[in-house]
């Protein structure tokens, strides 16, 4: 259970320095066209690729 207070210490809100140089731009939502390299590659992916992909556990 976490029914206590939200803790923000030792943060001082006045020390934040956020996005002063403009930050990231708006998302690019244009539709990919026939020359879209990403779409071309995605169409070549076997939809079952991850189903077939079995690995040993590593470290």
């Amino acid at each position, binding site marked *: 259970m976490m029914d206590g207070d939200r803790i923000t210490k*030792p943060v001082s809100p006045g020390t934040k320095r*956020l996005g002063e140089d403009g930050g990231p731009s708006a998302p690019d939502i244009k539709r990919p066209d026939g020359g879209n390299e990403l779409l071309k590659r995605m169409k070549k992916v076997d939809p079952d690729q991850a189903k077939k992909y079995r690995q040993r*556990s*590593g*470290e």
Partner: protein
Amino acid sequence: MRRILAGIETEYGLLVEGRGAEDQIDDAMALVRGYPGERLSTWDYRYESPRADLRGFQLERLAVDPVDEKFDEGRNHGAPTDVRSDQILPNGARFYNDHGHPEYATPECFTLGELARHDQYGESVVMQSARSFGEAAGKQVRIYKNNTDFHGATYGTHESYLVPRALGFAPLFAAVTPMLVVRQLLTGAGKVGSESGAWCDFQLSQRADFFTEAANAETLYRRPVFNTRDECHSDPSEWIRLHVISGDANMMPSCTMRKVGLVKLAIHLAESGEAPEWKLNDPVRAFQDVSRNMEMKARIGLEGRNWTNAYEVLESYFAAAERVLHLDDELCGIIADCRELLESLSSGDWQSVRGRIDWAAKRHLLEHYMAEEGDNWKGASMRAFDLEYHNIDLEEGLFHALVHMGDVPEFWSPGEIEECSVGNKEGTRAFVRALAVSKFRDHVHTACWRSITFKVDGKLIEVELKPDIMYPGHLKDANDVGTFMNLLGVER
């Protein structure tokens, strides 16, 4: 501020046409041994101690994955050192087979930029080997720089940091653990679905599902958020190696730099005695909750039934670092970069950071596809695309398509990455190892992270490589092994 030596070891996923996980050790051995470039196969295992624990004891044995044990029933792959198939490369890196995964361990670096560049060069080494192996075997070979097979098997991307032993376990654990829990927000590689607990459509971390304990020395099973393995790779009376196993493999160099930079901040604060004192009541649950909430709404439970969130934890480290540390340009840049990202994420605008964080890039391409094709998160294609994001083939991988299209910035040109083939320009001990392997290989009896053993005039002479110093550039001017050893201060 002390320079912190660091390295990254990446275990790559390996998919060979017509072969399965039961063949993976044989295939990884063949792949590593088939590396077409120069290398030396004389790794020195004497100082390895995977069962030693930072808390001052030795494990009797390390846990193994019961599923993997079944793969090996009735199989004998040979002596352990043969199975490892260790190669020391002319840049001082180590390339070997680790439990069926080709693993590239970068040369040790001081700066974040150089480390990320060497990490990216590792992709080129593994890809060259994969091509050679595929041609020899007549099979298609794909290599993935990720951390899961989506069936419950995970493999790691580990970070190593040189830390003074005098600091001790408790302050290091206290300072680093909260950072490991929250940094995934700015560094995670992203994953479709879950492999433990309730289903989720998408989460920030590839590894979160696999942690079961806050701290232990295991890496193959019962994995911890904070790994306590005490294998220091240097003089154990002076140093420990913080072995971080909870991070994801990153495709974006910016994420690699951020991932390492944030842990360096935590270490510096631990050493200064000024780390923020967050007392998480359950680091495993907190890690998993943060992973499943990209809007930073996950509550991180604290002792005393209070709570906080990832934003507050990260900002507390930045504020403390600015207050008490003399930060170098790289770490100042990391803090500014993180704050920009946090501002976007806290306003819900995660799409605007898709060129800077792997999970955001991956999520964006998946959501775009679903919108176009009418698929949903549980469709088989989603995990296939997730996997292919990590395909390191420049002509096939989805991440590399994003770079090709300019959606993700290219950090270094192919030529700049290739420069990493000849060594570390910062003069770390990897610079010495690289020179020894590339110029005096006939005299190198064995080598490891900690030392090089030369064979000169029939005598074996071990040279300890100091991990915290910058070796002088004029070492490369030595034309014979005797001069080289003299310049290293070796008395013969």
